[in-house]
């Protein structure tokens, strides 16, 4: 009766910011996939539910040296300090409505458990969590396009990117039915990944060396020697994570050839960046 299908995955993503065009396909694909509601005015970005949000970065220089780039920001699915699963949000939720799945590395959010205290939102430095300030309402007839794979949320609860967990559930169902022990890389891809017209998003299992995401990121299995809270740092010098220094250990990695973009990924004191930029990738062997 016991089944041994629980090889530990660590799903993650690497987003190539040089390829990202800021077109917004990932955002809409996410909203459409996950039954995200919309309202009359969505221009106040502080109350607009966008599990995937695309930020515009600028290098801050003046004309004509100014440069811009886009940075898509799903939930980071943080593993928390030392990668033990105590994500900033998970550790604070008083009702266990959000949880770190050690089998997948995915941070869940259970809408029916959440009672709307919003502590997790305060804990998340990425603003990846959104509150349903309003009852979700679809114009008459439009509720017909809602997908049964993701439960629509009610007013008063927090929601966020789930790495399209329902697609993992579906892939596993299929694998079970076909008598397979595990799923293939292409069987579980998030809606933003498959939608990206530029192919900027690569999704897969960071624990699986055969997966493309692992090959690009080359996560360091050892804790960072400068900050023991940081694990899974990329050994690719062009790859970085957002706010890596906080020890949140996100599973979203970003890739860029442009130094100013990589610098935007974290906060640095004066002069710090120049010292570390060339050693940005982990110094560990491998």
């Amino acid at each position, binding site marked *: *009766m*016991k*089944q041994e*299908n629980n090889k530990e995955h660590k799903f993650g993503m690497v987003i190539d910011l040089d390829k990202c065009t800021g077109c917004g396909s990932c955002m809409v694909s996410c909203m459409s996939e996950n039954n995200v509601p919309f309202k009359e005015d969505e221009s106040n970005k502080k109350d607009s539910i966008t599990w995937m949000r695309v930020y515009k970065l600028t290098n801050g220089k003046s004309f004509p040296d100014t440069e811009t780039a886009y940075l898509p920001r799903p939930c980071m699915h943080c593993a928390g300090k030392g990668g033990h699963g105590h994500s900033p949000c998970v550790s604070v939720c008083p009702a*266990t409505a959000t*949880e770190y*799945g*050690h*089998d*997948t590395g*995915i941070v*869940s959010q*259970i*809408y*029916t*458990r959440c009672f709307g205290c919003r502590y997790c939102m305060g804990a998340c430095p990425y603003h990846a969590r959104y509150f349903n300030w309003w009852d979700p309402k679809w114009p008459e007839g439009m509720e017909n396009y809602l997908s049964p*794979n*993701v*439960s*629509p949320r009610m007013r008063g609860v927090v929601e966020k990117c*789930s790495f399209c*967990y*329902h697609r993992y*559930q*579906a892939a*596993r*169902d*299929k*694998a*079970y*039915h*076909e*008598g397979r022990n595990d799923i293939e890389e292409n069987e579980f891809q998030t809606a933003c990944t498959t939608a990206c017209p530029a192919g900027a998003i690569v999704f897969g299992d960071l624990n699986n060396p055969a997966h493309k995401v692992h090959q690009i990121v080359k996560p360091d299995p050892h804790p960072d020697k400068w900050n023991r809270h940081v694990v899974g740092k990329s050994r690719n010098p062009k790859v970085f994570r957002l706010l890596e220094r906080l020890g949140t250990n996100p599973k979203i990695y970003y890739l860029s050839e442009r130094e100013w973009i990589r610098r935007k990924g974290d906060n640095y004191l004066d002069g710090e960046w120049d010292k570390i930029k060339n050693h940005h990738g982990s110094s560990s062997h491998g």
Partner: protein
Amino acid sequence: MSEIENKAENGSMESAGECTAGDTKDDKGLGLGVIFFIVAFVVCFLSGTLLFPKLLYSKKEQPFNFDHALHVSEAGDCETCHSLRDDGTFAGIPKLETCLDCHSEDVLGDSKDEAVFVEKYVSKEKEVPWYIYSRQPDSVFFSHAAHIDGAGMDCVTCHGPIGKSTSLKPYEENRITGYSRDIWGKNIFGIKKHSWDRMKMDDCAECHKKETGFKGYCFQCHK
């Protein structure tokens, strides 16, 4: 304040007893009070236990009776009608199309239920609006494939010996939640004797804990 503190000096332990003992006039009152207490207790407890469920649940009759035992003996097993699709999802209550694999506009047996079925649904090509006893709320993702194919479980463990039943019981719907009564279980205290008596999350977790050593992650069964 000071008055009280003074009294405290005299020893407080007896004072309470003294008070009731001395107050003989109230004895009968107290006796009556006890009777009132008992009566009210019993009435309220019984109505909470017996009457309350009647108010809480509405009863709905299925469109017509369905003889599971008969169909199992004809079809051989549950999966013939309640099948998994090729993508591993569970098809649930069979669609009319599945019924028509065997049935047709010509009545097979002699039950009046089949006559209703043919007349009201088959000939009108209408799906039968069954009430589903085991329907879980929208927030639940239940993988039949994981339990049937993955863990090799049988249907009875969760659904009970429904395959042996010859008639359908009325569907009882919780007026507040809209759930079927079978989710909380027939027993209003939520006490269960069999694994299929109740289908709350705790029951899932209990079995998972027992069988896999871990109650499971939230996302395993939520969507």
